[in-house]
C-alpha cells in the first residue's frame, strides 16, 4: 500500500500539464507552468534513477532545489497578478520582498536552532532554502486569501487555486518538518509519505481549478462602451456644476 503512494504523482502531474497546455497557462502563468513542466521532468528523473542510490540522491536534491526555485517564482507571479493595478504604488513591490525576508529569516533561525541532519554545505543550503520557500508559500497563500476576503473576489480564480495548492502542501510539509524535529528519525519515513500525499493533494487542487476553463470576458463593443461612458460623464458634469 505504501509503495503505491510513491506512484500517485505519475498520472496526476502529466494530467495537470495537459490541462495547463489546454488552458493556455504558459502565457498567463509562465512561472507556474515552468514549475509543472519541471515537476514532470523531476518525477521521471527520480523514477529512472531510483535503483541507483548515489545518482538518485543527487537527482532528488537537485530537483528539490529546482522545485523550491520555481515554487518561489510562482508565488511572486501570483502576487504580481493580483496587484497588477497597483503597479504605480511603490510599497506593493515590497510585499513579496518582505515575505521572502520573513521566510529566509525563519529558515535561518531554524537552521541555527535545529540544524538539518544532512551532509555537506550544498545540501544544507538546499534544505534551508526549501524550508524558506515553504514559509513563503504559506505566507503568500494566507495573503492571497486575505486579499480575496478583503476585496470580496470570486473564490474560484486560478491565482487562488495555485496559491491554495502550494499553501496546503507547504502547511503540511512545515507541520511534518516540525514533527520531524520533535520526534526524530523515527518520523523520517512517515514524513516522506505525508509530503508525497500532500503534494498529490496539491496537484489535485490545481487539476480541480484548471479543469474549469476561465477566459477573460470578451471586451465590450466600443460603441456601447462609449455611449455609457458619455452618459456617465454627463452625470458627473451635472454633479460638478452643482458645487
Amino acid at each position, binding site marked *: 500500500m505504501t509503495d503505491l503512494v510513491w506512484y500517485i504523482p505519475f498520472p496526476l502531474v502529466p494530467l495537470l500539464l495537459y490541462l495547463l497546455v489546454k488552458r493556455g497557462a504558459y502565457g498567463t502563468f509562465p512561472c507556474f507552468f515552468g514549475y509543472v513542466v519541471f515537476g514532470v521532468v523531476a518525477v521521471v528523473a527520480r523514477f529512472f534513477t531510483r535503483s541507483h542510490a548515489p545518482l538518485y540522491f543527487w537527482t532528488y536534491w537537485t530537483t528539490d532545489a529546482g522545485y523550491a526555485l520555481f515554487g518561489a517564482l510562482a508565488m511572486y507571479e501570483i502576487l504580481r497578478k493580483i496587484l497588477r493595478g497597483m503597479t504605480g504604488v511603490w510599497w506593493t513591490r515590497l510585499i513579496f520582498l518582505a515575505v521572502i525576508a520573513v521566510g529566509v529569516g525563519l529558515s535561518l533561525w*531554524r537552521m541555527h536552532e535545529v540544524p538539518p541532519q544532512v551532509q555537506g554545505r550544498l545540501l544544507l543550503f538546499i534544505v534551508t532554502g526549501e524550508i524558506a520557500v515553504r514559509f513563503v508559500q504559506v505566507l503568500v497563500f494566507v495573503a492571497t486569501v486575505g486579499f480575496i476576503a478583503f476585496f470580496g473576489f470570486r*473564490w474560484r480564480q486560478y491565482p487562488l487555486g495555485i496559491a491554495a495548492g502550494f499553501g496546503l502542501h507547504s*502547511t503540511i510539509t*512545515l507541520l511534518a518538518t516540525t514533527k520531524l524535529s520533535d520526534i526524530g528519525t523515527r518520523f523520517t519515513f512517515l514524513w516522506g509519505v505525508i509530503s508525497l500525499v500532500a503534494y498529490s493533494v496539491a496537484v489535485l487542487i490545481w487539476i480541480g481549478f484548471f479543469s474549469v*476553463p476561465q477566459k477573460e470576458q470578451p471586451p465590450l463593443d466600443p460603441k456601447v462602451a462609449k455611449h455609457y461612458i458619455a452618459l*456617465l460623464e454627463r452625470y458627473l458634469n451635472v*454633479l*460638478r456644476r452643482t*458645487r
Partner: protein
Amino acid sequence: MYLSIATWLIVASGALAFIYILRRAYARARDPKPDPNDAVHYLYPVDWALLESLLDPAADFALRWSLDRRALRAEHRRRMRLYRELVRRMAHNSSVLADFDDALFADSHLTRGPDSKLRQAIIKVRFYCAGVRLKLGVWLLLPDAFGLVPTPDLASLRKAVEVDGPKAYDELRVAAVEAFARLRPNELEALTRGL
C-alpha cells in the same frame, strides 16, 4: 521556543486560510446567487460635489482664515465625519460591485481575472478606503491637546496609500459601466447615478 511559536502560528494561519476557502466554497454553493439586476438597489450614492468640496484645499484655507481655533476644530471634525461616511460608501459600493460582478459570471465559464479593469479599480478603491478610514480613525481619536496638535487638513486625504482616491473611484465608475453594460438601460442609468 519562539521559533516553534512562529512556525505553529504560520502553520495555523495556513490551515485557517484553507478552512476559510472551503467554508466560502460551501457557502457559495448553498446560498442563492444575487441577481445582477438588483445591484443598483444595494449602492449608496456618493455625493461627488460634497466629496470635492471636502477635499478642496481652498476650503481648508478659508476655514482657517475665518474661524477661531475652537470653532475650526469643531468644523474640521464635522468635515472628517462627513468624509468618513463618503469613504464608507465608496468601500461599500466597491464590495457590492465585486459581488455582482461575480454573479454576472456565476453560470458561465467566463470570468474576470484579478487583472481586469473593474477588479483593479476595486482593489485601488478598497486600498484607498482602508488607508483613509485608518487615518481618519486616528485623527478623530486625537485629543485637542490644548491646540498643540495641529488639526490635519482633509485635502491631504486626496491621496492615501499612494492612491488618488477620487481618481480611483472615477475609474471604478467607468469600469463598472463597461462591466455592467449588459443590464437594462434604465438600470444602467440608475447604476451610474447610484455610484
